[in-house]
C-alpha cells in the first residue's frame, strides 16, 4: 500500500465481482468536488477478486484505485464493507468518502459513520463548497422540497443520487501527464477472513421473477400510480391502453404493494427500467425511484391533479387533471374521432 494521502475516496459497487457501471458516476462527482483535480482522489473497488477491474479503471480514467478484497464481498455485504473500509482507509486520511445512493450503501454509510464518528448525508443531488465548509442539497418529502445540510465532522460520508452526475465520456478531464499509481491492494485483515462473527451472512442472489407481460417490449406503457385511488379504477388504465396497438400496463410500487398488479409490472429502480415510445403516467407523483425506471422513455406524458407534482419535471407533456374524469373523456374522444374513420 502506498503512503499517499487522498482527500476523496469513491467506493464503487460490484456484484459477483462485476462493476455496476452507474457507480462510475462517482468519478464525475469527485471531479466536480475537487474542481477537476483528481490527483488526490482514490477509487476503491470492493469484491472477492477485483485487481483486474482496478487496473482497467486506472487505465481508463487515469485515477488511483485500490482493491478491497474479501471472499464475502462477492455478494453485496454492507456490514462487512463498512468494517473493512474503516480498517483500511484510515491511513489515507480522506476528508470525504462517497458512495452511489442505494439502500445498501446507506446501510454501509450508517455503520461507517457510527464507527468512525464521522457525519453522513444520503441521496445528495448537489453541493456548494465554500472553503472548508460544504453544504449538500437533497430532496425531502418525495421531492416536494429540498433541504440544505452541512456536515461538520472532519470525515464526511456522502451517498450521491444516481443520475445526477452523469458520466459522459468527456466529462472527466484526463491529464495526459498525470502520474497514477498502480492499483493498491488492501486484503482483508487475516483474522477477519471467512469469519461469520458479524452475524450477517449473504447466502445467494436470486434474479427477479420474470414472466407475464413484457413491459420492455411494449411501444406504449400506461402506468398507474396511487392516484388511481381504487383497484376498480385500473380498468380505466387498461381501457386507455387498449386504444394503442402495442401497449402494456405498468405501475408504481404502491399499486404492486397492494397486489392490485403483479410486481413484474412495477416500473422503477427496484422494478423494470423501460424506454417505450410513449410513457403515460397516471396519478404518479414522480419519486426518484420511479423516475429512475422511466426517464429514458422517448415521450413522457403525465396526468396529475397536483400542478406541482415532481413527475412534471421529467414530462414532455403535462396534463393537470383528475384522471378519474380525464381518462374517460380521452377514451370517448378517441372513439368519436378515430374509431369512426
Amino acid at each position: 500500500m502506498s503512503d499517499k494521502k487522498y482527500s476523496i475516496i469513491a467506493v464503487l459497487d460490484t456484484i459477483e465481482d462485476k462493476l455496476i457501471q452507474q457507480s462510475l458516476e462517482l468519478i464525475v462527482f469527485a471531479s466536480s468536488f475537487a474542481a477537476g483535480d483528481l490527483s488526490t482522489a482514490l477509487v476503491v473497488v470492493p469484491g472477492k477478486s477485483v485487481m483486474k477491474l482496478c487496473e482497467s479503471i486506472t487505465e481508463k480514467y487515469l485515477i488511483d484505485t485500490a482493491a478491497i478484497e474479501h471472499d464475502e464481498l462477492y455478494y453485496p455485504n454492507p456490514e462487512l464493507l463498512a468494517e473493512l473500509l474503516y480498517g483500511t482507509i484510515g491511513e489515507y486520511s480522506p476528508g470525504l468518502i462517497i458512495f452511489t445512493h442505494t439502500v445498501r450503501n446507506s446501510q454501509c454509510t450508517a455503520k461507517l459513520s457510527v464507527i468512525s464518528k464521522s457525519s453522513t448525508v444520503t441521496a445528495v443531488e448537489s453541493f456548494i463548497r465554500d472553503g472548508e465548509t460544504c453544504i449538500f442539497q437533497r430532496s425531502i418529502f418525495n421531492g416536494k422540497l429540498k433541504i440544505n445540510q452541512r456536515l461538520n465532522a472532519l470525515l464526511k460520508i456522502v451517498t450521491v443520487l444516481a443520475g445526477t452526475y452523469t458520466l459522459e465520456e468527456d466529462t472527466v478531464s484526463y491529464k495526459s501527464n498525470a502520474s497514477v499509481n498502480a492499483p493498491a491492494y488492501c486484503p482483508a485483515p487475516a483474522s477477519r477472513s471467512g469469519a461469520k462473527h458479524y452475524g450477517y451472512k449473504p447466502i445467494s442472489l436470486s434474479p427477479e421473477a420474470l414472466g407475464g407481460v413484457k413491459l420492455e417490449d411494449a411501444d406504449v406503457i400506461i402506468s398507474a400510480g396511487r392516484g388511481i385511488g381504487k383497484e376498480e379504477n385500473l380498468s380505466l388504465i387498461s381501457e386507455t391502453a387498449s386504444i394503442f396497438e402495442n401497449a402494456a400496463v405498468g405501475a408504481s410500487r404502491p399499486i404492486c404493494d397492494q397486489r392490485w398488479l403483479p410486481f413484474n409490472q412495477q416500473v422503477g429502480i427496484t422494478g423494470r427500467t423501460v424506454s417505450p415510445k410513449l410513457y403515460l403516467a397516471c396519478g404518479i407523483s414522480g419519486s426518484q425511484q420511479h423516475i429512475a425506471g422511466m426517464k429514458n422513455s422517448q415521450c413522457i406524458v403525465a396526468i396529475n391533479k397536483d400542478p406541482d407534482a415532481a413527475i412534471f419535471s421529467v414530462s414532455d407533456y403535462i396534463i393537470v387533471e383528475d384522471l378519474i374524469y380525464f381518462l374517460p373523456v380521452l377514451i370517448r374522444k378517441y372513439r368519436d374521432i378515430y374509431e369512426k374513420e
Partner: protein
Amino acid sequence: MKILVCVKQVADIDSNLKINDTSSWIEENTKIAYRMNRYDEYALEEALLIKDVLPGTTVDVLSVGPARAVSTVRKSLEKGADKGIHIICDNPALPAFDTASLIAEYVLDKQYDIIFAGVVSEDMMQSQVGPMIASLLSMPSAVNVVKSELINNLTALSVKSELEGGIIENIEVALPCLVTIQTGLNLPRYPSLSNVMRARSLQITTINSEDLKKTQSCVEILSIEYPPVSSKGTILTGSIEEKAVKLLNLFHEKALI
C-alpha cells in the same frame, strides 16, 4: 420473542406543504394530515405477524417526535402492539444520527431480539436511522427486506433483501438484529374493535429526549426550500375535452394511434 418497532409520524405529502417563516422546516398547522410513515406500517405488521404465531411474543413501538406523534403510537397499540413509548423531541427535523442515538440509548438495556424499522422515512428520506441504531448497539442489520422468516430455532432471521433492478439477496442474520422493512411484503391490518378498546386502557410511556441525549451529530440542517420549477414540458391547456383532443392529436402525430 421481544420485538421493538420504530415508527415515525410524518406529514402527509399531499397536504399542500408550505415552508415556515424561518425556512427551518415545513409550517406545522392543523391543515396538515399526520400519519404513520408507510414503511413503518409494514414493519409493524411484520412484528404483529410474528406475535400472531409465536406465543409469548411482545411488540413494543417507539416513536421520537413532537407531542403530536403520540397519536401514531396510539394507532400502533390499536393495531395490536403491547406497549407504546414516546420520546418527546420538539425538533421535527432531527438528523438521523440524533434520532438513532436517542432510540439506541433507550434500547440499551431492554434486550430486544428483533428491532424492526422502515427502509426510509417519507419526510427526511435518509435510510440511515435503522442501520445506525444497529451499529450503535453493535448488532447486525439487514435492510430493504421484502421477506423475513425466523430460522434455526428462533436464533436467526432468513431475509430477502431487494437490490436495485429487482435482484434479491438472500441473507441470514443472527438475533438480536435490526431489520428495515420495504413496503409490500405483507398487508398491514386495520385496528380491530377489541384492540381499539384494549388500547384505550394502555398507558404510553413518555420520555423527554433531553434525558436520553448523550451526543449530538455533526450534521447541521440549514434550511429547506422549494425545488426550482424546471419543467421543459408543454402544459396542455383548455377544457378537459380540449386537452383530451390535443393529446390524441399528439398520439396521432407520433403514429401511436
